[in-house]
Structure formats: structure tokens, C-alpha cells
């Protein structure tokens, strides 16, 4: 293939600018049987981009567990669906909007939230909760404050206007995100199981309809941008960022749900990344049909738009639908009522080709399967991440004053209160928020019932960096644990896989390691992955982010009267730690924040233990035998108890071993929970735990207005709260 044909003014440089390699161009020519024109090249470039084709990741994604009796729809649709019983189901997905949010934080984050909500209501579900997982650079980095404030305002600006509560999430700060922040947004929706809509454009001769906002030139090549590394000129990429219009999306939501209550729709798909191109190609591919578009009918916001621009525009708040023939007028009336554009722009055909007609001429004609199945899949070379040594406890000096150390930890950037953030999100709209932000998992009531959906997002990137395999297991296990801690039965998860450049074997090794760990954990915990998104090339000037496979988990509470929270309630109760405490300090928050040490293997996760301990804790909650539960995570036991104390406004005295006390109190051993129980209840719980093979140890007693260790090192709950609440508002108020 030495002499490749070119047409329409395309040169090898044009091909490179479209993010395609010479080999990929050769494959396009082979599949087309001729040289593509510019419009066709543009369409190939987005369909074959990492973002749409998963060309680097697909091979490894195939190993993830995606099935289970509760799974109604797994990966491949707009979002995943799990059964909630009683004819209802939860529709959910998490998606990244990292690159746009770095370039323009408000609009990047806002359109990320808008996009993920569309993915959910496209399937017929009303969104009932939003979550987000955010990573920013070091607080001292000069862009961090600006990015955080813009991202939070953008998430709030969009979600608040939509009237969907943003009920929780997580935030980390680390210098490895200085040049690439992560904005991962998750939406959970509620659908009747007999009213689920899919994207397969089945049937020939059916009208293809465009609804929503008009098309402009915004975001052209956003999908290819999301698949390329940053350099110092990234600020110049601003024009490809889309602007969100939450008002239009609110109208689109209501109009779509109104039309969905009739039987007019055969298939529906959100126009997300790569807009009209990816939505039409995916619908045609799934339905086994072709689509013939008349682009003169596309509602345009700007003058003289070309087919290339219409097909690649990422203008927001648009949907593509295939209607049953004859339903056009009924559908049109609904969209007219909501003041939205509605245009029949094409028809399904039996050609299996995507054909574009513009001003009476055919401007593109491409086999659908060339765009999808023929997309290259890479088995990228990878090398496993070298294992680190486990650091012994005596690597780290014991603190002189545990109270002072605890106060410092609860006020450090990664553990400080996120109140400054979540007070900017409307978290009580819709009148069903049962557990507001700050708990282990958020809980929203299923409207009109006494059932609830629990939601949590988790990953510990420093573990994933230290040991991708254990880190991947831990991300899934911690999500499962957080759902368990509020009394929910975990049903399924979504993932947002944020990594660096997959063309580097060490980065690809992180990816492969994390996915294997996630898969093992999903299998062992019966916690399938039903939807997800991959974001690669999160690198700036050759330095990658920490591997960050963010997990969003969903669980079910069949009876909200049997939900649990972390607040200590009754003086005199006993604290019991469920799970084994060995004192693992490597890669811990204590090691990093107090000793500036980020070395050592992360704590391993034994998945059998995880399951046994979690099932035991859930049974205690269901039996109403505990008054507070909190999982043990960043910062270890002492931070866990402090968080329970701050939530309840009561202190506790902790009985700790006299030697390697710091490892006991700050070690981050996995699969643990702290529970609060009455003195009478404690005895039987410990006996039951023993019978179940679950370690259960008395940790201390609830009471007083302070935390103390063996009666010493006292620090008041009030001063802990002061430290916990102070950091973020002070950081955000400081002059840059």
C-alpha cells in the first residue's frame, strides 16, 4: 500500500490533523474502496477516535463482569439498567468531561452534566440524582482554585436548573492532576421496566427525526480533542468547547418524557460527543439498517453551515429519534409545545449505508459497518507495574499528640469537609433526598414509595498508582462497602476509566491492572458493571495523571426505615470495629500528610473477607441492631471515629494497643466498618460475628464532647469540626 489515493484536497497532513494514522487511513480507503472526501474523512475521524471506538481499551473491557439476574441492560446502550423490583428500574452511567473542563471549567463541567443526564433520559428515565467524582491539582498550583470554582459552579448551574438534586460525590487534590483535572459526572434515573427506550433503529422506511436545540459550529472535533494529549498550547483549543443551555435541556427532558408516554418512538439516541455522526451511526448499526439524511433539513443556528460541520458539531441539547411512520405530527405537537426544534431529516433504508444528501447532491456515502465494526482495535503493548514493598509500621514515627495529628488530618485537603462545594448544589429538590451529601452513600427515595436508591462514587487513585491491580479491586470494594454501610444491597456499577496515554506500555499496564482488579472484585461481590466510559490521554507534557478508574455504585434499600447513617447518637454505646486491623500504613493518608511519604504497597483487599464482613454489617442494619455505621477508608480508624463524632456531635474514647498505636489508628486495612451498638447488643453481635467468621473487636465507648485515646490525647469534637470545616472555604477565599 505504498501509493494511497487522496481526493477532495486531502493530504497526509489533513489525515494527521484528523487524529488518524497513515495505517488507519489506508484501512479507510480499503473499506470504502476509494479515497474518502473531506466530510467522510471527518466522520471516520470521530467514529474511529478513542472516545467513540474504544480502540485501545475494548480488548480489556471485554473481561469485565456485566451480567446478573438484576441486570436489565448492560454496557453498549446510552446507560446501564438494574432492576429495583415492583416494575421499576434504575438507569445510570458516569461519564468524563475532563479535557473541556480544563479548558473552560464552567462550560466543560456544565455540558458534562447535561450530557450524562441526556444519556439517562434518552432511555425513558426521569433523572432523580446526580453525583460527581472530581480530581484537581495540588491546592498550591496556580490554576487549582480557578478550576475548582468554575467546575463546581458549572455542575451546579446545570443540575440546579434541571431540578435534579446533586446528592454527593468525591474530590481529591494531587499534583499529578495539575495539568489534567478529572470531571466525572454520574446520573441515576428511574424508569418503569415496560417503558424503557433503546437506540436500535429497527425497520426500513421510518422517519429519522432531529429534536432539541439548533446546530451551530461549537465543539467541532471535541471527540478527537478528548483523545489527544495536552501541551502548553491547550488554551488555544478554547473554540471547540461547547456551551450548555440547561433551560433547553429541561424542555428537552420534559418533551421527551411526554412523547415517550405514547407509542410513537422506535429508537432514540442522544447526540453527545460527535453529535449527529455517532448518534446516527450507532442507531443504524444496532438496528441493522442504513440512514439517508437530507442535511438541508437540519435546524442550523449559524449561516452557511457545511455538511462536515453539521455532522461533527457537538452543539448540546439535541436528540435523534426514529419514529413509527405516521406519528410525525403527534410528535411535532409535543416538541412545539415545549418550544423546541423538530425536523424530519432522514429515513431508514435497507442499504446499510450512511448517505448524506445536501443541496440535491450526495456528499457522503459510507458503509455503516466500516465506521463501527471495521474500526481498528489495538492490543497495545503493556508492562505490569512493578510491585512495591509493604512498609513496616516503624517506617513512620508515632505522633507525640494523637489529638493534634487527628485534627490536622480531618482538615487536610483530601479529608476536609466538602460543604463549600455541595452547598452550591441543590441537593433537596424533587423532595426525595433522604441522605444528603456527607454520608457514606447518598440515598434518594423512590418517589411515592418507602424504597430508596443508594449511590456512591469511589476510587483511591494513590492505591491504583502504587498497585493498579489492588487499586482496581479496592475502588470496586469501597463503593460496595459504602452502599452496604447505609444498609443498601449493591446492585451494579458504572465506571469512568481515566488514564494517561495508552501508547505508553507503563500506562497501558496501569489500565490492564486496574481492569483486572475491578473485574475480580465485580465477580466476587456480584456487582456487575452495566455502563461506563473511557478517558485516555490525560497527560500534559508527558506526565500522566494517577490511574483513576472512578466507580459509581447503585444499591437498593427495600425499606427506608432500615437505613443507616454514620452519626454517633447515644452516650454509653460501644464502638465495634468489624474486620481485621493489621495496621497497614503504606500509601496511607497518614504517611502522606504527616510524613510526606507516598511510598509502599497499598493495603490489599481480600474479596472473600470483603463480602463476608459487608454481608454481616448489612444484616445488622436490617435487624435494627446498630445505631451508626461508617466504613473505614482514608485516614483509618481514628479518622472514621472522628467523622462519626462530628456527624453526631458526641465524642468517644478509643482503646488502642500501646505499641504501634499509630499503625492501629491510621492504618488503612480494607473491608472494615465501625459500628455503634448498645452495651447489651455488643455481646451477641460479637458472638454472631464469630459464628460468621467475621472479626469484631470492641474499639471504645461513645460519650463526652471529645475524642480521646486510652483516656489521653484528648481533642474536642468542636475543635475537630473547626479544622474539618475551615480548610476549603479558607482556600477558596484566599487571594490567588
Amino acid at each position, binding site marked *: 500500500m505504498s501509493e494511497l489515493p487522496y481526493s477532495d484536497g486531502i493530504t497526509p497532513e489533513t489525515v494527521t490533523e484528523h487524529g488518524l494514522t497513515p495505517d488507519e487511513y489506508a484501512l479507510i480507503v480499503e473499506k470504502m474502496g476509494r479515497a474518502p472526501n473531506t466530510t467522510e474523512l471527518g466522520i471516520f475521524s470521530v467514529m474511529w477516535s478513542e472516545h467513540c471506538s474504544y480502540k485501545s481499551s475494548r480488548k480489556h473491557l471485554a473481561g469485565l463482569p456485566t451480567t446478573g439476574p438484576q441486570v436489565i441492560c448492560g454496557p453498549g446502550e446510552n446507560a446501564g439498567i438494574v432492576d429495583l423490583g415492583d416494575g421499576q428500574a434504575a438507569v445510570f452511567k458516569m461519564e468524563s468531561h475532563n479535557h473541556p473542563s480544563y479548558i473552560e471549567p464552567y462550560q466543560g463541567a456544565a455540558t458534562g452534566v447535561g450530557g450524562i443526564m441526556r444519556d439517562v433520559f434518552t432511555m425513558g428515565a426521569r433523572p432523580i440524582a446526580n453525583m460527581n467524582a472530581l480530581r484537581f491539582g495540588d491546592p498550591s498550583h496556580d490554576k487549582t482554585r480557578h478550576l475548582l470554582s468554575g467546575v463546581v459552579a458549572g455542575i451546579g448551574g446545570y443540575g440546579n436548573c434541571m431540578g435534579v438534586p446533586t446528592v454527593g460525590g468525591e474530590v481529591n487534590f494531587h499534583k499529578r492532576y495539575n495539568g489534567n483535572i478529572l470531571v466525572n459526572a454520574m446520573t441515576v434515573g428511574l424508569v418503569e421496566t415496560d417503558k424503557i427506550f433503546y437506540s436500535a433503529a429497527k425497520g426500513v422506511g421510518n422517519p429519522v427525526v432531529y429534536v432539541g436545540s439548533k446546530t451551530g459550529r461549537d465543539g467541532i472535533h471535541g471527540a478527537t480533542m478528548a483523545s489527544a494529549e495536552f501541551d502548553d498550547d491547550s488554551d488555544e483549543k478554547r473554540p471547540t468547547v461547547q456551551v450548555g443551555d440547561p*433551560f433547553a435541556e429541561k424542555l428537552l427532558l420534559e418533551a421527551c418524557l411526554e412523547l415517550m408516554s405514547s407509542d410513537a418512538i422506535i429508537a432514540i439516541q442522544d447526540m453527545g460527543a460527535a453529535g449527529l455522526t455517532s448518534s446516527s451511526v450507532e442507531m443504524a448499526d444496532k438496528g441493522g439498517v442504513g440512514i439517508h439524511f437530507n442535511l438541508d433539513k437540519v435546524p442550523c443556528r449559524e449561516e452557511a453551515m457545511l455538511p462536515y460541520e453539521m455532522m461533527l458539531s457537538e452543539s448540546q441539547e439535541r436528540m435523534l429519534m426514529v419514529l413509527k411512520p405516521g406519528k410525525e405530527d403527534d410528535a411535532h405537537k409535543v416538541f412545539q409545545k415545549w418550544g423546541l426544534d423538530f425536523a424530519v431529516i432522514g429515513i431508514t433504508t435497507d442499504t446499510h449505508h450512511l448517505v448524506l444528501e445536501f443541496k440535491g447532491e450526495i456528499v457522503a456515502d459510507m458503509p455503516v459497518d466500516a465506521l463501527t465494526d471495521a474500526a481498528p482495535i489495538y492490543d497495545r503493548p503493556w508492562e505490569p507495574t512493578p510491585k512495591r514493598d509493604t512498609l513496616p509500621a516503624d517506617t513512620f514515627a508515632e505522633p507525640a499528640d494523637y489529638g493534634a495529628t487527628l485534627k490536622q488530618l480531618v482538615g487536610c485537603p483530601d479529608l476536609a469537609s466538602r460543604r463549600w462545594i455541595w452547598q452550591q448544589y441543590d441537593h*433537596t*429538590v424533587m423532595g426525595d433526598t433522604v441522605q444528603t451529601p456527607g454520608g457514606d452513600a447518598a440515598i434518594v427515595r423512590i418517589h411515592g414509595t418507602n424504597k430508596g436508591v443508594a449511590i456512591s462514587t469511589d476510587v483511591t487513585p494513590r492505591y491504583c498508582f502504587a498497585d493498579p491491580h489492588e487499586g482496581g479491586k479496592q475502588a470496586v470494594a469501597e463503593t460496595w462497602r459504602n452502599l452496604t454501610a447505609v444498609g443498601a444491597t449493591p446492585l451494579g456499577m458504572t465506571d469512568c476509566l481515566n488514564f494517561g496515554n495508552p501508547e505508553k506500555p507503563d500506562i497501558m499496564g496501569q489500565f490492564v491492572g486496574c481492569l483486572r482488579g475491578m473485574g475480580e472484585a465485580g465477580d466476587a461481590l456480584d456487582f456487575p458493571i452495566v455502563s461506563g466510559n473511557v478517558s485516555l490521554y490525560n497527560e500534559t507534557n508527558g506526565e500522566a495523571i494517577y490511574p483513576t478508574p472512578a466507580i459509581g455504585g447503585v444499591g437498593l434499600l427495600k425499606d427506608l426505615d432500615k437505613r443507616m447513617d454514620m452519626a454517633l447518637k447515644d452516650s454509653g454505646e460501644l464502638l465495634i470495629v468489624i474486620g481485621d486491623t493489621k495496621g497497614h500504613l503504606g500509601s496511607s493518608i497518614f504517611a502522606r500528610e504527616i510524613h510526606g511519604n507516598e511510598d509502599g504497597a497499598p493495603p490489599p483487599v481480600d474479596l472473600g473477607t470483603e463480602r463476608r464482613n459487608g454481608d454481616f454489617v448489612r444484616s445488622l442494619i436490617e435487624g435494627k441492631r446498630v445505631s451508626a455505621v461508617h466504613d473505614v477508608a482514608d485516614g483509618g480508624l481514628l479518622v472514621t471515629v472522628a467523622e462519626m463524632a462530628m456527624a453526631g456531635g458526641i465524642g468517644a474514647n478509643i482503646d488502642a494497643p500501646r505499641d504501634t498505636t499509630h499503625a492501629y489508628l491510621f492504618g488503612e486495612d480494607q473491608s472494615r466498618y465501625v459500628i455503634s451498638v448498645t452495651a447489651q447488643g455488643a455481646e451477641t453481635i460479637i458472638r454472631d460475628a464469630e459464628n460468621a467468621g467475621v472479626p469484631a473487636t470492641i474499639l471504645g465507648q461513645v460519650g463526652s464532647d471529645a475524642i480521646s485515646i486510652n483516656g489521653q490525647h484528648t481533642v474536642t469534637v468542636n475543635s475537630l469540626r473547626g479544622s474539618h470545616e475551615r480548610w476549603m472555604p479558607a482556600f477558596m477565599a484566599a487571594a490567588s
Partner: protein
Amino acid sequence: MKSAVIVFPASNCDRDAAVALEAVSGAAPHMVWHGETDLPPVDFILLPGGFSYGDYLRSGAMAARSPIMREVIKAAHNGTPVLGICNGFQVLTESGLLPGVLMRNAGLTFVCKTVHLRVENNETLFTRHYNKGDQIAVPVAHHDGNYFADADTLKDLEDQNRIAFRYVDNPNGSQNDIAGILNANGNVLGMMPHPERVIAPILGGTDGAAMFESILEAVA
């Protein structure tokens, strides 16, 4: 009680308001679309929270000029009780049914949290189930809740006992800590906090229920 909830294109607390009204009165309200030109015969009208027209231009500005608002204004002038919550309060000031204006919060950010309100006037059809001086816990969720009026208007509001609720700890910079005000006739109340979000213990409180019970009793 026959009631109506006005639904603007991007209202988003309309369902919450309807749930609260039905829970307290036992009757579902009429949901009236903003484009309508007729109001059904009702005893009470509620303008819900949300972003009406995206809150572009100014919060509540375009909603205040929508067709149904002509009927709401007429009904208010004829004495029908009208309650505007959050965006509904903004619509009431923009439509001239209540004086003043709700500006961007002093802190500039959207603020969602539970605040404490002091009941300043319990001799109204909206507040008779509270005691004067009661402190009630009710959430706020807004970007533009910073109440502003000129000195004469403020003096009138104070002198005529038309401040229904004041913030105990002002979240948005409102003048005189104003959280809710009445019109001169006492049949129109606008307030930024959301009483409809605190009508059940599972949602974190019940301090909003007394308002709907007051209205129910007043119009019965």
C-alpha cells in the same frame, strides 16, 4: 381546598409543591401551564420554584410576563391567596405583586442549605399555625435571593408588619434579613425558602407543614 400550581417551562419544584399540597389538603392541585389564558376556579395559587425561563435576563422576569400571569395578577387583586416560593417569589416581584427585587446572592454562589427563619407575623392566612417568634428550619436553594428595596419600601414593609419571615443567620445578603414578605392586603406571600421540602421527617423536617395547614384552614 381547590388549588392551582402554575407550571413555567423550567419550573422544577412544581411536583414538590403538588405533593405537599396533596399531603396536607388531600386534594391534588390543578397544574396550570404558563401558556394558558384561563385559571380554573381555585381558592389558592402557588408559584413554584425553579428557573421558569432559564432565568435568563433576570430571574422570573420573563415568567412574570407570561399569559397566565395576567390571570394570576387579576386573581390576587380579587383577594385569592397567592404563595410564591423561591423562583415564585422572584416572579411575584417582577410582576409587581410584591415590591422590591431579588438580586444575586452577596456571596455570588448558589446556596443550598437548611436555614433558620424567625416567624415575624403569624397573623396571616399563611402563617397562623406558627407562633410569633418561632424559629423554623427550612431549606433555601437559590442563586438570586438577595432582597433589595428602596428605603421607603423597606420602611413600609416594616411599619405595616409585612415581613412574614426573617433569616436568623442571613445566607444571601438580604436587606433587613428578609426571607419572606406580604403584599399590603396580606393575600400574597413571597419567600425564598422552601417550606414544601420539609413536610416529612424522612426529608429532614416538618416545619413547612404548618404553612400548608394554615392556608388550608384559611380558605376552608
